[in-house]
Structure formats: structure tokens, C-alpha cells
């Protein structure tokens, strides 16, 4: 897959975050940003789990090698 996060998409977030005031529609926009952020939070937790799984796998393998 050749997709990479489009910079334009990422920068528009900065646009919303820096809107001069917080009218109700801007609040709605910020809720959407917060939703994306919450998803990213889960992504980070998953990544942490992956990292722990990696260390555990490596640890198990080295123990098995030592046992042989």
C-alpha cells in the first residue's frame, strides 16, 4: 500500500486547533479531533502491548536457546 498520512490532512488539524474562537460548530470540530485523539490513545496502548509481547517473545527464545 502506497498510502502515507497526507500532510495536508494533518495540518488542517492545526487549523482547527488554532481557530480564533470556540463557537458551537468549532466545538463540534474539536470533539471530532478528540475522537481521533482517543483512537490514537488506543493505538498507543496497543503499540505498548506489541512492545511487551516482543520482549517476552525474545526472552522466551533466549531461554529456550540457553536450555538447549
Amino acid at each position: 500500500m502506497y498510502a502515507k498520512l497526507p500532510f495536508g490532512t494533518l495540518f488542517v488539524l492545526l487549523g482547527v486547533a488554532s481557530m480564533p474562537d470556540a463557537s458551537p460548530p468549532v466545538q463540534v470540530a474539536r470533539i471530532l479531533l478528540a475522537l481521533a485523539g482517543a483512537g490514537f490513545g488506543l493505538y498507543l496502548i496497543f503499540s505498548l502491548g506489541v512492545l511487551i509481547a516482543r520482549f517476552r517473545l525474545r526472552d522466551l527464545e533466549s531461554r529456550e536457546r540457553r536450555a538447549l
Partner: protein
Amino acid sequence: MIIAVGVGLSLAMIAMAIGYNGGMFLLSRHAYKQKNDQVGRSRFYVFLVACLNEEKVIRASLDRLSDVPGDTLVLVIDDASDDGTAEIVREAGGDVRLYRRAFPEARKGKGAALNAGLAHLRACGLLDGHDADDVIICVVDADGRLDRHAVLEVDPYFGDPRVGAVQIGVRMYNRGLGLLARLQDMEFVVYGEIFQNARRHLGSVGMGGNGQFMRLSALESLPEDPWSDCLTEDLDLGVRLIAAGWTNAFCGSAAVSQQAVLTLGRLVRQRSRWFQGHMQAARKLYPLILREIDGRAAADLLYHLSSPVLLLLTSLLPVGFVIAFADSVWRGALGPLWFAWFYAVTFGIANVYGHVYRQREKAVGRLRALLIGHVYILYGYIWFLSGWWALWRYMSGEQGWLKTART
């Protein structure tokens, strides 16, 4: 408070993506030193072309392949076409061989056809007398037009005995036929010149479906069939080669040109298929990467495989932006300075894309490249549509896809 934390995490997501993309750009500008221990060895190149009803494009592809200098052979695997594909291949003659598959084995996907082609190569004795280290299998799509100098450019990479596969650049031969085709060409050039070049330093170069050159001994070292039934069997193969201890290289000085799709609907559909394949591959490859691949290569591959998740998350951002932007314009709350700043941060990167593209496409003038770079930023949004469509298909258990139609 919760909203503030969420927005903060969104900003962290941006920071990560900018850091990754910026880092890859800087890395891609660094020279890569190629090891070459096996100078002077001659290698046998076999082009595998899997075909299913390709009479519109196969003749031009075979003409190009037959014209490639060196010790070469073309094996066309006809996956039970019911058009004139087989007749055209038979007429080609020379070093072009035809292997026809029949039902019930035929039409089980590109991966199955390629595996059958490789098995046929071995069984019919075409590889007899060749050392598997010196046989290079190259996969070319039926619409692929390989650069005449591709083998000359790729061959030195195989001088390093650790190199199991080399991916060359991918271009669109019909890039002159409208903006959509041009943008696809830019997409592949940017991907190759920035990401694949950078990945040479990380040891995580990916394989593409077209223009992948692989050492036969590397394919034989894999515990399973080289090509899987995954929708993105190329991605899958590239990672499994790295996991088996081989190095994947990228050669940007040669390219295979393929046909760009010319309508938005077909493009979204094609990208949905890739997106879904990426999700399929991620499930299978995560455990393999965690077990077998070290350091930077593992980190990059895990990030790359997780990109569908990040893409779907970021698709919420433009919706939020449009709402807030429309409201602010309506109330006249945005001054000219804000617009200037917004333009700079949103489209400033178009300069980089335009510059990178012009390095490979001199025929496009500086200003035109810059303008295409601007449109390319908007073009990236197609992935959002494709991504949600793919997720829908994935969740509803639809795993099969028809291939992209040729014109």
C-alpha cells in the same frame, strides 16, 4: 478536560506522522553504499507474467521484455483466459514461453498463478544447470513495461550475497492522459524516491506487485509458497524475505511502467483492495515481525503495517476542519494572516513533492510540478474513502476482489 486530552493526543499523532515522514525524507537523501562481493557472475533472469484476459496489453509488454538484453526468459502464466491472450503469447515466439493453467486449479488469484509458474519452471527443466543463487525471478504485471536497462541496473545489487530481492521503481506509462494518471505517477515516484530509498537504510524495503526481482535461492528458503493468497501478496512476500534473513534492496534508477486507472471510481476501488490486503497482511505479519525481525526494520515495518489504523483515525480530522472552517468564514472570524498561515502549512509540502517528482520527470516544468504537487495533497484524501470501504468489506467478511480492469 477530556476534550483537551483528546485534542492533545491528536496533536501527538500529527507530531509522530510529521516526524516519521520528515525523518524518512532526510534519510532518503543520504547515499546508500552498496556491497558487491560477487562481481563478474552471470545471472539468468526469468520474467514471470501472470495473465488473465490481458489481450489488450500483453503484446506491448512482451515486446518490451523480449528487448531486455542479457540471459533472459519470459514465462507467461495464462490463468485460463477466455480471450486471445494465449494466441498472442504463442505468436511472440523467441524466449517467450507459455504455461496455460486449467480449471479447477486456475483463477485462484495472482499468488497461486505465480507459485504454479515457478513450480512449472522447475518441473520442465528450464532452470536445469543454473545455481539457484544465480537465477533471478522477476514478476512483471501483464500491463508492465520494463525499462530496457532494468536488468543492467538491478544486477549489481545481487552482487551482494545477502540481497534476496530488489524492487525497482514503478511509473505510469499513460501519465500523459490526464491529471488522475499524472497524480498516480507522482504517488509512485514519491513513494519510491522518499520511502523506499529511506528504507534501504532501515532494512525494510517493501516489494511491489510489479517489478520485483528475487533470487531463486531466497524464494526457496521460505518455509511456505513464495506468494500467498493475500490481496497484497507483494507486501507479504517482502516481509517474509526479511524475516528469513535476506536483505531487500531498492533500485530507483530503473522502473517498470504500468497502466494508471483513469476514473475516480476505479481508483477508489483499486485502493480499497490494497487497503484491505494491507489489513489482511498486518494480522498475519505482526507475529512474524515480532519473532524474527530486529531493530529499526521491525519498528518501520510495524509502523507501516499499522498505517491503515492511522489513516482511518486521521480521516476524522478533515470533517472537523470543514465544519469549523465554514463556520469561521461565515462569521468572518478569519483574517488574511490566518489564510496565509493555513496555506503555508497545508500546501507548503507541495514544493517537496514537486521537487522530488521533477528529479524523475524532467519533462514536467518547475511550475507545473509545483501545481501538481498542490493537487497531490488533495489526492491523498482518496485513501480515506478507500479505507472506509475496505474496512466495511473486511468487517462484513468479504475477502475477494476482482482485479483492476484494463483499458
